[in-house]
């Protein structure tokens, strides 16, 4: 029983990490209807820059965290300006944006290798105090709780922001129909840039938390989470913030439960992706996806 409880906690935790990564991802996806495949690179760079600030600039993590998050947000603005704005009005913008963001991701990753080296690095042990609790044989760390809390707060806050606030509605309006939004007085280009900023800042923050928790940062760390992040936002329903978190947790749980139930992890990813596959067949627009509106 303890074992099972521990696995559930593991699943919720790793799922929240996926979700954190996916929130920013899905935000841009929802607005522009294009995938920003440089998101994983921002995730990586956010973590690496925070590490650099802590290690080389000898800052406290509490200073480095917001600075690196800000830096990631600015990367988002750069991605938008370089990889998306020039393509905005091309007929193939969907695919070309996909590719240009990959191209930029390659440039970012090579820059990361060039600047930080290819090896895995970690935050100094003293960066953040971690408490470990053993409750009834179940291990929980303070960092885990913090990460799950942050994910939950972000989900609630962002959802509310999108539903209620003026800018949130403007973001959704741009997502629905850019031309209409423009005619209604929405500063579309500004809203898009703003969305990229928020999205990338979130991506960078996720990278920092990831690095803090797992104690491992490397220039290619975005790669392994990229695919899962993609799976998660589709599972949750594109553009849906609760979907991203809940999809993340669902994905995390399916991974962990495979291990718990089968006792071996050989098929962990296979099961996770099969579940994704099955859910898509049952609910073609994901768990929380927008319902198909009439076409005729």
């Amino acid at each position: 029983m303890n074992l099972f409880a521990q696995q559930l906690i593991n699943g919720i935790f790793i799922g929240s990490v996926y979700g954190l990564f996916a929130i920013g991802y899905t935000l841009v996806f929802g607005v522009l209807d294009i995938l920003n495949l440089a998101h994983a690179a921002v995730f990586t760079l956010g973590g690496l820059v925070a590490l650099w600030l802590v290690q080389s600039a000898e800052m406290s993590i509490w200073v480095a965290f917001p600075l690196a998050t800000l830096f990631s947000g600015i990367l988002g603005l750069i991605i938008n300006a370089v990889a998306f704005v020039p393509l905005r009005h091309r007929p193939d913008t969907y695919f070309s944006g996909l590719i240009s963001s990959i191209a930029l991701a390659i440039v970012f990753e090579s820059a990361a290798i060039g600047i930080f080296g290819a090896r895995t690095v970690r935050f100094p042990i003293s960066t953040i105090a971690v408490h470990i609790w053993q409750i009834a044989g179940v291990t929980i760390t303070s960092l885990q709780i913090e990460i799950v809390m942050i994910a939950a707060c972000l989900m609630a806050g962002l959802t509310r922001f999108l539903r209620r606030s003026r800018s949130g509605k403007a973001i959704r309006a741009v997502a629905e129909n850019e031309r209409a939004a423009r005619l209604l007085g929405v500063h579309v280009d500004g809203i898009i840039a703003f969305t990229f900023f928020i999205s990338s800042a979130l991506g960078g923050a996720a990278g920092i938390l990831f690095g803090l928790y797992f104690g491992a940062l490397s220039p290619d760390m975005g790669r392994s989470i990229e695919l899962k992040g993609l799976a998660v936002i589709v599972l949750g329903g594109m553009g849906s913030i609760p979907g991203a978190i809940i999809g993340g947790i669902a994905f995390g749980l399916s991974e962990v439960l495979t291990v718990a139930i089968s006792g071996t992890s050989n098929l962990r990813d296979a099961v996770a992706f099969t579940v994704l596959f099955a859910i898509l067949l049952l609910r073609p627009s994901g768990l929380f996806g927008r319902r198909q509106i009439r076409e005729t």
Partner: protein
Amino acid sequence: AAPAWAAMPEAKIGIVFSMTGGAASYGATQKHGAQLAVDEINAAAGDKGVHIKPYFDDDASTPQQGINVFKKFINSDHVSAIIGPTLSDTAQVTDRIAQAGSVPVLGVSNTAQGITEIGNYVFRDSLTEAVVVPNTIRTAKEKFGISKVSILYGNDGAFTKAGYDAFKKALTDEKITILSEQTFAKGDRDFSPQLTEIKSQSPDAIVVSALVEEASGIVSQARQLGIPASVPIIGGNGFNSPSLIKNAGSAAEGVLIGAAWSSTASNPLNQKFVKDYTAKYGNPPDQFAAQAYAGVYIVYDAIQKAGAPFKPAKIRDALAGIKNLDSVLGKFSFTSGRDADYKPVLQEVKNGKFVVVGE
């Protein structure tokens, strides 16, 4: 006119590692090791001695790029010998090209089975897990009285899979019970589900086949999840890197590592290498660097024996004849099957250092 090398004999060597892609972190230290050796050799050769002209290249961690690089080395650069590539997958393909082109190739990190069986031009100085592991398990059993273990390994990479095979065989040979086998994938950062499962089985030890990127995470998360320090973690070549200690910190204490090289081995060549490398690059070397460094010296030895004009075939013969060469790895020979033949070491992490605890 007389060729340039008549005055200053120069042997061309192609050196290819994964500078980008999934194995980039290993390729980076390999290149450092090789570069250091080349610089030392060329400095020592002075005006008269045989120089090495290195052609460095990147296989981007993929077989296709590896093939292109090998073809270029052989047909365009006309190198006399090749060192690399980083990954066994790639070597499976590229070494056949070297074989077909009759250019000797020395793998310095390929550990998969069957690589040297490709042909008589294919060598390696990397001890395979199959050589290192039995010794590790035997010593560990004697020392800790281990009778039941859980295994955790990466099942999607040739290196970690080969390590697993070797561990499994050694454990069976030693009649140690395997409680469960868990796997992970390249790039995984979270190992808590597997470790939770393992914890629940209360093994005497955890046997792990992983490269250092994942190994550090596994070691620290195992301790974080409350697997007591009295349950040792046993790893292979992949663990043998200073980053393990750097990244896992105190959790790394007590980890047992069977490896092909030890940074603390008393061998003076080795001590000098560790010192020079650390001075030059600011980081202590890992096993990848050491094997690459040794590889350049091994090839250089063969080159000198073969002599100008450095015909690949003659270098091959000289390589095959290497016996008890002094190297950072120890007294180095090739087996008749062109695999490395020297003594592995068993190390333990103590007070943040690798300490040799047996052979």
